[in-house]
């Protein structure tokens, strides 16, 4: 299935990956050939087959709603690209 350049740009925007025109052309080619490849799946009739989301069909485990983690705020903030007064810094969002 052939994607258009515009579709690829839109997908990249949804994934929040900036791509230039040259990259977009290359990805249009690559993604289209991957989609052609995976289209082999259409050869099999899968009506009434239950989708398998996970190798072990186990329910999610439950646990008591208790605090088990210690607070490591300083340690976590220490590896952030930009912090100030104990807060993560990002460009201004609200004018």
């Amino acid at each position, binding site marked *: 299935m052939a994607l258009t350049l515009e579709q690829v740009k839109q997908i990249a925007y949804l*994934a929040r990956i900036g791509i230039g025109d040259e990259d977009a052309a290359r990805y249009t080619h690559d993604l289209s050939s991957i989609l052609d*490849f995976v289209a082999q*799946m259409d050869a099999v009739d899968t009506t009434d087959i239950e989708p398998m989301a996970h*190798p*072990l069909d*186990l329910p999610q485990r439950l646990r008591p709603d208790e605090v088990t983690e210690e607070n490591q705020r300083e340690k976590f903030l220490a590896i*952030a690209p930009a912090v100030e007064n104990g807060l993560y810094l990002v*460009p201004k969002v609200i004018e």
Partner: protein
Amino acid sequence: MHTKTLAELAQGLKRREFSSRELTQHFLDRIRRHDGTLNAFITVTPERALADADAADVALDRGEGGPLTGIPLAQKDIFCTDGIRTTCGSRMLDNFPPPYDATVVARLAQAGTVLLGKLNMDEFAMGSSNETSYYGPVRNPWNTDCVPGGSSGGSAAAVAAGLTPAATGTDTGGSIRQPAAFCGITGLKPTYGRVSRWGMIAFASSLDQGGPMARSAEDCAMLLQAMAGFDPKDSTSVDRPVPDYGAALDRDLRGIRIGLPEEYFADLDPAMAQVLEAAMAEYRRLGVEFKAVSLPNIGLSVPAYYVIAPSECSSNLARYDGVRYGYRCRDPRDLEDLYLRTRAEGFGAEVKRRILIGTYALSAGYYDAYYLKAQKIRRLIADDFRRAFQEVDALLGPTTPTPAFRLGEKTGDPIAMYLSDIYTIAVNLAGLPGMSVPAGFIDGRPVGMQLIGDYFAEDRLLNIAHRYQRETDWHRRLPPEFA
């Protein structure tokens, strides 16, 4: 010392024929001497290694410690190590010192092992040749013009060249088994849920599984014993007792039935077929019976995988936003620019390709045609295996279609690269355990035999591999340049 197996090293340490410090220094020296050629390590941790070794020697002098106490090993750089840079082979995490240890790292440290460093890998484990790493390709010790396989290419090359006696790997579509085959070592991908994924940087969460890579099945058994087991921190970890893998190794194989999937042998390269014929002859001498089986839907495993894995990847990798840790672009204009450029600059081409495919497959209007369809095919593939295991105890086939290919040979063609995992991917879709065991050479390059087991039958797989390794010496061969 670098030619010995873990069992032999453990015995030497226990008898105090050499200290853990001497052993560790030997491997650090070999890394310094050879890693310029191989590029298997992203980070070497000599100070940490010698400190670990000294602690192990104190215990060993007192006659304490377990079978792995004082044994040096290296971690794939996908496992978080507290305070030690963990890159996942990506620029995105070039400056990331995790604030905690992965469960696998903590368990192996608890067992007394020594950390030599962190091993090179394809970026976010997405690749089959180690060529997508931000830190450059790893070279195959058997032929340095060839790839070591991927994504655990650094792990396989380092073990094969004797830069570490053992390593950890992870396997999402063959990333332990394929590099193990290409580098002539033994690698085990456990049943999904057997080894905790906590602190193992996520690629495709329903497929990822960590496991051991070493010289022999016996060594893999020793490592798996320490790595496996329930972990409440991983919601997909299975709460089920861990058997004694070492005790199972020597079990008699008479009466064992091994299935030969027709689809694995149909278009097999004649040289590879010959290697497998020879391995089967060994097994027949050990009393194994072979039986043809069929896995009719297995031909769709690569297409289904390249919908499921990228879909999960696009979701998992959404967390890299340049805010809390990792790479951030310079001087973002606004928040959107911060996301767009951080992710454009921080991720490499293959990772972006997969994020884009996954984003598309999960987007409104396409979900049923791609993701749901792939999950249905996943069920058909898992059912194929389930039927086969009603008749046989294990399956045998090739690990890869060919021996290691040349650097650059497949980088221009994503699909050719994806197809190099054609024999390994179905095992991840089903969640089964699989191993690659050195079984011979083609044109001077090692190739592997793949053994696939039923759920949680790692003990049986290790047993089948170990009995073969008692009769053969493929796993003891060393690449001449690094002997």
